[in-house]
């Protein structure tokens, strides 16, 4: 016994420096250049969007953050102008500054894309958690319902829903929320089912943890990684849905400059001035691409199997 301890003490254990999951993930995330570029663009857009929405109180913070001109200011003498120094992206049919509108539009796309994920997390997370945790009849019932929602083409349901509750920011918001939770619910259920079999959960049950503690301390943190990745990929999907609805004329109403609305407006004058479609089009695509890159980066960073 004593000699064994002595041997162990002599061995120079090569213990790597202890790092937490999040610290580790951040290190791996930073290695992915595309993901970092995407994150940079998104952070910049968030700042611009906040600045565009700040109430007009000249001076101080407003002066720093309010980078854009007035997206609603019409100028009927200077319509469909080519890009100049004053209007770097030109002006639209009503002489409004396209750059101001594109920047202002980011606030709509970003807020729908990001905030709706909380709704998806609430619905999908609780359905999946309940189905996986309680199992049995509850699982059966919830999963049959999920299957039905899955068979519904989501854009179809979103269209009907938005028609039902009128085209507004909040009805689009809720419509995306109640159609896009299905994937997350399935993911969470699968996670819970696999984690439930793990030894440490059995140990926790045996030592008499309450179900609430079990869920909060074991199930939630251990299924967090894939859930975060899934939610990140949900952001471009939600941005797409909003833009598509607005483009079809059922979403955000003009004159509010959502990117979808701008593309619809530009489509009417596409042969007169294609740039009216090009700029908001690039804006949507670039934003969605950034979130996709972030999602890719997070997926690689948060996967524990990738840890050395």
């Amino acid at each position, binding site marked *: 016994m004593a000699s064994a301890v002595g041997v162990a003490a002599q061995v120079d254990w090569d213990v790597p420096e202890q790092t937490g999951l999040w610290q580790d993930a951040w290190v791996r995330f930073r290695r992915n250049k595309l993901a970092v570029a995407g994150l940079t663009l998104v952070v910049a857009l968030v700042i611009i969007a906040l600045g565009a929405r700040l109430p007009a109180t000249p001076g101080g913070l407003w002066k720093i953050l309010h980078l854009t001109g007035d997206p609603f200011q019409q100028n009927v003498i200077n319509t469909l102008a080519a890009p100049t120094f004053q209007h770097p992206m030109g002006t639209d049919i009503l002489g409004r500054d396209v750059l101001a509108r594109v920047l202002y539009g980011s606030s709509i796309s970003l807020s729908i894309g990001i905030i709706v994920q909380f709704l998806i997390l609430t619905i999908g997370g609780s359905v999946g958690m309940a189905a996986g945790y309680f199992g049995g009849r509850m699982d059966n019932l919830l999963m049959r319902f999920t299957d039905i929602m899955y068979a519904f083409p989501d854009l179809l349901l979103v269209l009907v829903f938005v028609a039902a509750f009128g085209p507004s920011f909040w009805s689009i918001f809720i419509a995306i929320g109640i159609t896009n939770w299905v994937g997350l619910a399935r993911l969470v259920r699968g996670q819970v089912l696999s984690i439930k079999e793990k030894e440490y959960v059995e140990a926790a049950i045996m030592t008499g943890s309450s179900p609430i503690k079990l869920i909060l301390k074991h199930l939630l943190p251990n299924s967090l990684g894939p859930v975060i990745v899934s939610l990140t990929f949900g952001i*471009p999907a939600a941005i797409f849905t909003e833009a598509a609805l607005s*483009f079809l004329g059922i979403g955000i109403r003009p004159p509010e400059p959502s990117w979808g609305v701008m593309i619809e407006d530009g489509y009417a004058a596409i042969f007169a001035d294609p740039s009216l479609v090009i700029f908001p089009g690039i804006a949507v695509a670039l934003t969605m691409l950034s979130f996709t890159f972030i999602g890719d980066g997070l997926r690689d960073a948060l996967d524990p199997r990738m840890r050395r």
Partner: protein
Amino acid sequence: MIPVLFFVILITFVLMHQAPGGPWDREGRQLSPAVVNNLNIKYGLDKPLPTQFWLYVWGAAHFDFGDSLQSPGQHVSTLLLESWPYTMTLGAVTFVLLVPIGIGLGVIAAMRQNSIADYSAIGFATVTASTPNFVVGLFLIILLSLGLNRLTGGTFYLPTGGLPEPYNPFQLQLIMPVITLGALPTAFIARLTRSSTLETLRQDYVRTAWAKGLKPRLVVMRHVLKNSLIPVVTALGPTFAFLVTGSFIVETVFAIPGIGRSFVTSIESRDYTMILGTTLLYAGLIALMNLVVDVLYVFIDPRVRLT
């Protein structure tokens, strides 16, 4: 499948009648209350909602989807059959093209991992997967119609829409809509094929196949492709759903008088029976497609048994 369709009717029905306004609202001139009342009686809209619902389900079970509320005297099924050829032609041509192109891109990318071909295929797939299809469509119009027209001095342009001839896959009108509709699912299939092929290439039996000196073509066709296509077949169901939802937007962009476009208009005009009929048609198609995929699965993967 039947319970799914039943719930699809139920959800759509409840939501639709939640909508403010009705099918008789007209911009400008209002119909007199007596006329509205008569119209409601004629189309059974005066009955209580549950009765209307069961009547519709009963009719739908007998393939009677009622009359359109906005095109008087026209059956919903007649109207759907009229626009069906356009949607069908577009969807079928896209589907036939996208599956081999997507699989081909994915396999090539996987076989030459980390080569230029791989990077460009993955780059293409990532960018198209996160560009909204209406943006793709409009950029194509700018490039192929506007750009081509200016390049050739106004002598040639690609038609930006209008009536494609039904059931004819070889026509200029289809080029841009097909690319627009197919870009996203092609990228999706390519990514999926690439990752599953990469996984198969690392399997022991593939190494054995190389080791016993099989020709590369045989290894790929017989050992790699056959196994790496299993997840791709599963994805054909969602791909089909992509095509369905894509058709709303693509038909609007290119002014194709198909089902997707008529659905968007019937939502705007609160044409209850048309909305229900179209939803039911699409949901039924998708359910059917998923069923076909499930059956195909048994043939491809001997490990799966129908129980």
